[in-house]
């Protein structure tokens, strides 16, 4: 039973329909050529080798240099990219891509099907964290002529067509990366691609610079003369850079929510939460379900009742988000996969319900009104998580649980939670991505309880029923049947509450109103900015 776990973009029937495209996405007026765009990228990417690392910030910069075979519109329908057309055979095991003509890499050499073959088979399939699975079915790629690449698959893989963006599967030049060890390649941080911008330099700790590619295969583009990505460690300083117009855009909540609320009032600044539809993150509280006291479902439910989701959204995240109801993000409402017909923990008298549950579960209040003590770990990805942890600590005190907070750094926390399972309660956030198969299954399936792998089933909760529901849903092609399976899945998971679903997080992009044309696909900042322009 193949579960397509780590493919980037989903099974066709799971396409969330994004209807209204905001007005300013359609460029106001005619694009003006020229100008230098300054992006704030946080944190600094560790490398530019997007073929080898899916670290978040890499996607913001590498995508200006590398491109993919396909692009996508706001309805997640594949559009021509480096491939001008493609066709899938009847049995789904052969996909033929016809490539664009006259595409050159930044060093002048032509882009051909040999590069496609090399990239997929020798690089992505071997070193890309998600590529290992995305291209599992690809046995070989035939290159009958320089403009044709024929993928021969061992079995149908409809999800694969959604994983061919410049972000997920960048096309590399074989004549550069073909020689030498791909894992330690000297050109890893000096990328050579086909994209609208050429890499010029990277001053570590300061900035990356990309200049316009004058020989870009889309005539007349890009409009911008230059893109500079700046790295600023301090949150307040990042906000100041946008305020003084030293920078024009900062995405993925690089500007902290509190500053966003302040900046959006300024006449020259706009904010948007669009462009993150492929991520769908959910903020949650994870329990260690194999140890006391959270091996008892009643205790877990009590905690789920005790959290005031609105308070958390309004005060810790300054209003960016919606209360979460279950393991699947409400972004999937349009596809029918999402249901809100589950146990509702978001009730006004939550604390009272929680107290009663704990009393019934046999945890009576002892000295000082404390039922029992726990340690609450805080995920080390920023200040908001600390405030969230402090809030939960206070709420738990109201239901008689004395929680001690613990801060650790990233490697320590990861090891504790996903390798040693040495925790009781931790807060966390997970990207559920564009299809439940990719982002959601990994958190609840018994096969994904793997010590040493991060961001998978760390609570170690599973049931044969939910496993079966997931397995059937991943191969179900009938949309209605699939929806029914996932509805049942959500009901069961929310009832057992191995995770408290707090809220659906909204990433925010803060940008100067002078910047237009950057939001042209659901990939948002992960797109190549060939249509972006600055109003003078």
């Amino acid at each position, binding site marked *: 039973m193949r579960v397509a776990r780590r493919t980037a973009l989903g099974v066709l029937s799971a396409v969330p329909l994004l209807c209204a495209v905001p007005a300013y996405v359609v460029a106001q007026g005619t694009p003006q050529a020229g100008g*230098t765009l300054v992006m704030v990228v946080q944190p600094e990417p560790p490398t530019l080798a997007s073929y080898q690392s899916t670290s978040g910030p890499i996607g913001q910069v590498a995508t200006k240099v590398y491109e993919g075979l396909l692009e996508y519109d706001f309805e997640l329908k594949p559009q021509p990219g480096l491939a001008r057309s493609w066709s899938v055979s009847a049995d789904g095991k052969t996909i033929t891509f016809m490539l664009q003509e006259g595409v050159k890499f930044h060093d002048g050499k032509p882009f051909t099907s040999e590069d496609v073959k090399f990239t997929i088979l020798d690089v992505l399939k071997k070193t890309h964290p998600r590529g290992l699975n995305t291209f599992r079915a690809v046995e070989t790629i035939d290159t009958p002529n320089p403009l044709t690449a024929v993928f021969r698959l061992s079995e149908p893989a409809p999800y694969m067509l959604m994983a061919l963006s410049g972000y997920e599967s960048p096309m590399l030049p074989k004549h550069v990366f073909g020689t030498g060890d791909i894992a330690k390649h000297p050109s890893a941080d000096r990328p050579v691609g086909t994209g609208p911008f050429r890499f010029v330099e990277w001053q570590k700790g300061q900035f990356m610079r990309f200049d316009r590619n004058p020989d870009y295969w889309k005539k007349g583009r890009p409009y911008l003369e230059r893109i500079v990505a700046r790295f*600023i*460690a301090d949150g307040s300083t990042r906000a100041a850079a946008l305020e003084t117009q030293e920078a024009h855009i900062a995405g993925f909540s690089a500007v902290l929510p509190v500053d966003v609320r302040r900046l959006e009032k300024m006449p020259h600044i706009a904010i948007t939460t669009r462009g993150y539809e492929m991520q769908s993150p959910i903020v949650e509280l994870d329990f260690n379900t194999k140890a006391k006291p959270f091996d008892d479902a009643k205790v877990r439910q009590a905690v789920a009742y005790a959290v005031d989701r609105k308070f958390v959204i309004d005060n810790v995240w300054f209003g960016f988000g919606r209360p979460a109801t279950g393991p699947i993000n409400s972004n999937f409402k349009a596809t029918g996969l999402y249901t809100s017909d589950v146990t509702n923990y978001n009730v006004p008298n939550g604390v009272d319900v929680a107290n009663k549950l704990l009393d019934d579960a046999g945890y009576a209040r002892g000295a000082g009104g404390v039922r029992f003590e726990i340690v609450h770990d805080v995920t080390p990805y920023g200040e908001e998580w600390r405030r969230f942890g402090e809030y939960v600590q206070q709420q738990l005190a109201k239901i008689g649980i004395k929680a001690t907070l613990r801060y650790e750094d990233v490697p320590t926390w990861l090891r504790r939670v996903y390798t040693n399972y040495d925790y009781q309660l931790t807060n966390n956030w997970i990207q559920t991505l564009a299809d439940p198969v990719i982002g959601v299954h990994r958190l609840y399936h018994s096969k994904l309880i793997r010590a040493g792998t991060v961001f998978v089933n760390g609570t170690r909760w599973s049931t044969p029923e939910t496993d079966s529901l997931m397995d059937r849903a991943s191969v179900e092609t009938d949309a209605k049947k699939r929806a029914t399976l996932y509805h049942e899945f959500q009901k069961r998971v929310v009832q057992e509450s191995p995770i408290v679903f707090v809220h659906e997080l909204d990433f925010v992009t803060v940008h100067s109103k002078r910047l237009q044309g950057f939001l042209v696909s659901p990939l948002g900042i992960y797109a190549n900015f060939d249509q972006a322009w600055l109003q003078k």
Partner: protein
Amino acid sequence: MLIAKLRFAARRVLLAAPTLLVIVVLNFGLLQLAPGDAADVLAGEAGAATPEYMVQLRQKFGLDQPVYVRLAKYVGNIASFDLGFSFRHNQPVAQLILARLGPTLLLMVSVLLLAVGAGVLLGALAARHLNRWQDNVISLVAVLTYATPVFWAGLMLIVVFSVKLGWFPTSGMEAVAAFHTGWTRIADIAHHLVLPAVTLTLFYLALYTRLMRASIIEQSTMDYVTTARAKGLNERQVLLWHLLRNACLPVLTMAGVQAGALLGGAVVVETVFAWPGLGLLAYDSLFARDLNLLLGIFFVSACLVVAVNLAVDMLYALLDPRIELR
């Protein structure tokens, strides 16, 4: 005399070698205490990684080998001036450190010069007008600037001079979008240097002012001062020709100590102002468990401190001939 000084210097350098070794081993040991390794960090950043991928990563970094093997390898490399490879940054450590050393040195030398210079002047001024209003004002200001947390001062300076008044840039070392060269570039860097340097100077200034003042006060009880006065020198001459030279010694010691702490103290300022220096790099590498890089930074700063201490001791002996260089 010169021979003795050279012998002293040579001996100190030789003695420094085992110190450096101990430091490297100690740092290495401390960093082993921290759970989690570079592979964990990269996996965390990537957002997902299979066990196979992580095993691959560990192999690549040599993290799967026993501790003593890694230590031995590292020490051996240091001896041949190879500081290793930073897998997180995909660059040789030496290259990374060199790139960031410049900005840090620039910041700290400016701060040191400003702080010591102003401190000596203000301290002498305060001592000269002991217990009168000049002394009180200077001492008060010194204490005030010392008591203000550095990051708070930095943030406030940004809010006032950068955001509200627009006189200085908010962060960074240069205007990245402009790509200046030559004198324009130097001027641009100087412009960016002002706020971070001032922020840090305010803090160190207090130290040197007060130390200079206390030192002069203490020195003025010495017999040679009475002698000088008896010889007919006025107060100003006494101060300039006699007191200053001797009173400088504790300040020199403190400055030597501070110079040795160049990197760490700047971490906060570098964070607030995004100044691309070693302090910030070290902080990042600690949390990224990039051992090679962190050890490289520690090693470089260790060499720096040894050199500076040596220089201070020799300068000290120069100023106070009664001290023997043993």
